[in-house]
């Protein structure tokens, strides 16, 4: 049990996907302007990351490995993720229109979010089993969402600050990310053992 | 202590304690101000529609003559304060905005003499209200809400309490205090008249503890009156604000965007109550009021009974000023408006005229404000529990629309936030701009 908890906490905080693994930076910079859109994006990413982790694990375990097709890993994963995102979009659209309205615009953006493919590849590299993969994906999504929400709340406050013109937008966002990353660095020690 | 039997009350949220400066004029009895040579009488000295001008250039008018006719339900009559000749009916700059005003040059004689005194007890409620209306009485605490309108609340609002506002929480001002000291009986009579109009059983008279003599005087006077109670209040600005006073005395909360009658209360100022008595007993229109004239550079500080329309220049001539004037403030120093010209007239709501020296004026210069350091002193000081810091930052960035999200409309502009702000930010200025621009 503790082992699984550590996987989640580790993926979410200790090795935060955005702040210490540098995955998913584009949406992190792009969608962190407003808190409500950050929330929507975060939820969508958690959803997709968890599912994608499970499905890519199964493809790798039951399709690629038995037939020695590992060289198709990259290409098959990216196609599966793209299909999954499409599928999820369709399903949500049909079953939960209100959820679709809040998540809808973020879903297409997720295909090119390298956090999703990154998590899938990491699961393979770390030799995680199915449950571990799912938890790792979920934890990664939570970590992404936490970082995104923190950044969005800070940037909303910074809207009203006199940031030098050349540093407005991406530059100051990266500097904030740097300081957040400093903070997350000190969590590293907690589950180091 | 002598008032130990009474419970001392105050409001809980926010508030500040500015230095009082009341010693300058506290012991100055009310003096009649000499008749001015010229008056400028604005036709809008109240909230609501400007009165319709009844005179034109060249007309002769007598004292107490109606020169502005009440226009619509929320409006008030305006009368001439001196006999004379109408020199002009123009848009004049009053308190830094343009208002249609009647300019009268003193001419002819005062014919009115002693007014006949009526008994008020036999008068019907409607008759009393009619007399208040025709005398053009408005709230004299500053806001200028037409009193006849205020005293006839909608029938679905059940009014159970009248609060008489003797707080006078603004520094420097003592005009209400002098009125309370010198016209105690008249004020009590006025209270009874208002009480009859409203048909309420209970009346509370709120007076702050820095006016102990007035509290004692009213307490002694009211021993025989079982339904009129004096309530001593802890000194705290802005206790004279309607909502704060209701909270302090009755612990009732006026809802956002509501008026006192929403919680069954009517609040009336001491000076207004006094004017109501004069209007009802003598059918005398509101053409003069007690004004505190004070400031370190004023030679003859005091409380003057000044005719409405008397200009600042006449006041300066009479009281004498030594040294250059930096600022002229109509009203108290916390909420008063400073005027740019000596042509600004005394109005029905002018409770004080303050003269600041150049040095005093320069010490509060909002053009050199600093960034907000988020010290949250303003949050602590705000009597409405707003976030003035956010309002000021949004105002500074000219995001007027966003200010609404921070309850801009609930701000009473009391100035507590700016008063305590270490960065000396003109928060009230931004709020006023926000209210004007986000509507």
């Amino acid at each position, binding site marked *: 049990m503790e082992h699984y908890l550590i996987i989640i906490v580790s993926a979410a905080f200790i090795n935060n996907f955005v702040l210490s693994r540098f995955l998913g930076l584009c949406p992190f910079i792009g969608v962190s302007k407003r808190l409500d859109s950050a929330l929507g994006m975060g939820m969508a990413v958690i959803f997709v990351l968890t599912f994608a982790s499970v499905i890519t694990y199964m493809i790798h375990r039951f399709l690629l490995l038995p037939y020695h097709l590992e060289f198709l890993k990259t290409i098959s994963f990216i196609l599966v993720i793209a299909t999954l995102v499409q599928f999820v979009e369709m399903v949500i659209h049909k079953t939960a229109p209100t959820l679709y309205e809040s998540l809808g615009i973020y879903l297409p953006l997720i295909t090119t979010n390298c956090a999703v493919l990154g998590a899938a590849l990491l699961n393979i590299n770390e030799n995680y089993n199915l449950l571990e993969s799912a938890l790792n994906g979920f934890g990664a999504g939570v970590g992404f969402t936490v970082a995104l929400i923190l950044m969005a709340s800070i940037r909303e406050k910074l809207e009203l600050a006199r940031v030098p013109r050349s540093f407005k937008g991406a530059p100051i966002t990266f500097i904030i990310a740097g300081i957040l990353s400093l903070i997350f660095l000190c969590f590293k020690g907690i589950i180091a053992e | 202590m002598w008032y130990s039997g009474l419970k001392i009350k105050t409001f809980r949220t926010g508030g500040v304690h*500015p230095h009082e400066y009341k010693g300058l004029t506290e012991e100055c009895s009310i003096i009649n101000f000499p008749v001015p040579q010229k008056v400028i009488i604005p036709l809008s000295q109240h909230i609501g529609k400007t009165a319709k001008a009844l005179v034109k250039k060249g007309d002769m008018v007598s004292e107490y003559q109606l020169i502005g006719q009440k226009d619509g339900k929320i409006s008030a009559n305006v009368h001439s304060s001196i006999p004379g000749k109408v020199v002009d009916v123009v848009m004049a700059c009053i308190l830094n905005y343009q208002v249609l005003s009647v300019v009268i040059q003193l001419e002819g004689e005062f014919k009115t003499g002693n007014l006949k005194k009526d008994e008020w007890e036999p008068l019907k409620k409607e008759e009393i209200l009619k007399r208040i209306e025709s005398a053009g009485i408005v709230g004299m605490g500053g806001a200028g809400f037409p009193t006849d309108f205020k005293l006839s609340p909608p029938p679905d609002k059940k009014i159970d309490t009248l609060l008489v506002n003797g707080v006078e929480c603004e520094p420097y001002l003592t005009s209400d205090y002098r009125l309370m000291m010198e016209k105690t009986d008249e004020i009590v009579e006025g209270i009874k008249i208002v009480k009859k109009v409203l048909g309420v059983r209970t009346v509370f008279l709120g007076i702050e503890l820095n006016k102990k003599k007035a509290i004692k005087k009213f307490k002694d006077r009211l021993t025989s009156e079982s339904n009129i109670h004096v309530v001593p209040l802890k000194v705290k600005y802005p206790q004279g604000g309607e909502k704060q006073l209701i909270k302090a005395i009755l612990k009732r909360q006026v809802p956002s965007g509501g008026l006192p009658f929403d919680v069954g209360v009517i609040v009336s100022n001491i000076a207004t109550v006094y004017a109501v008595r004069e209007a009802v007993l003598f059918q005398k229109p509101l053409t003069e009021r007690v004004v505190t004239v004070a400031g370190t550079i004023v030679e003859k500080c005091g409380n003057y009974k000044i005719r409405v329309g008397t200009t600042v220049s006449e006041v300066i001539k009479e009281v004498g000023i030594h040294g250059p*004037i930096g600022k002229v403030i109509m009203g108290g120093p916390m909420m008063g408006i*400073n005027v740019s010209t000596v042509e600004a007239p005394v109005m029905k709501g002018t409770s004080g005229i303050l003269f600041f020296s150049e040095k005093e004026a320069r010490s509060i210069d909002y053009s050199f404000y600093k960034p907000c350091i988020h010290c949250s002193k303003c949050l602590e000081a705000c*009597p409405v529990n707003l976030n003035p810091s956010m309002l000021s930052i949004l105002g500074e960035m000219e995001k007027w629309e966003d200010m609404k999200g921070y309850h801009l409309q609930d701000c009473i502009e009391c100035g507590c936030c700016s008063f305590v702000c*270490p960065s000396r930010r003109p928060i009230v200025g931004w709020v006023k701009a926000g209210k004007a621009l986000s509507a």
Partner: protein
Amino acid sequence: MYRLSVSPHIHSKASVSRIMWTFIVALMPAMAASIWFFGPRALYLEIISVATAVITELLTGLLLKKRITLSDGSAVITGLLVAFNMPVSVPYYVPIVGSFFGIAIVKQLFGGLGYNIFNPALAARVFVMFAWLPEMTTWNAPLTTSGFSKLAGFNFSIDTITTATPLAIAKMKGMAGLLTEFGSKMGMYKDLFLGKCPGCIGETSALALLLGAGLLLLTKIIRWPIPLSYLATVVLICLLSGNDPIFHLLSGGLILGAFFMATDYVTSPMTPKGMILFGVGCGLVTMVLRLKGGLPEGVSFSILFMNALAPLIDRYFKNPVLGVKT
């Protein structure tokens, strides 16, 4: 024509420089203690750090064409706090880089005084901590004689014996290790309270820090909610986890952090509720890091972490506006 301005026309005596300079005065006892226990080198570090902070503020101000706000003293505070958060043996470039990072990047790039999201001194401390971990975690025992006597002779030497901070001892060897180090429990409390123990130069003397904190509380420059909830949370967690609360209160940078850094206006929430939550969060993270973390100390990290959460707290914990139904 008379001067025109908006109301109010009178003002309390409060001003930014008054607040900041009082704050600096409140830091003076701790500064004296740092020299007393660690010798003139502590003073030297403080001077270097403050000078760097002030010069950086001046230069960046000129570069960014800002109104120069040196007189408000906030740069001096940042410089002092950066130095306070370092061991006495650090090379001189550490406070220089730290102060520069704090002022130029964490403060001025965010818009200067009043706009920074993170406490510049804390961010600087964490930055140099990860930049030069060995230098930042080498501790010297306090001097056995008063450091003031060395001051006159410009004697910058420091005790060469390196040792471990009380928190590190507690982490490695537990209470038994602390007792052998200090002799007795009362002796330990006394030494920790006075500041006679290895640690960052400005954080060791609880006595000196509390004197300054008293001044700040009396002048109402800082308010109770944050320090109180911070310290109370630490005590509560200590009691629940079977640790010595007095030891944890007095050791490390807790007093310095709770009264002088967590209370930083700009980087903490503005409403009483938010402040309490902020303090509780600081206490929680501090104790998690102290008891479970890889490094023995957690005060700077925890406050910096809560700085990042402050905008979120401010957003969700607003004062209820009177008369508005929620």
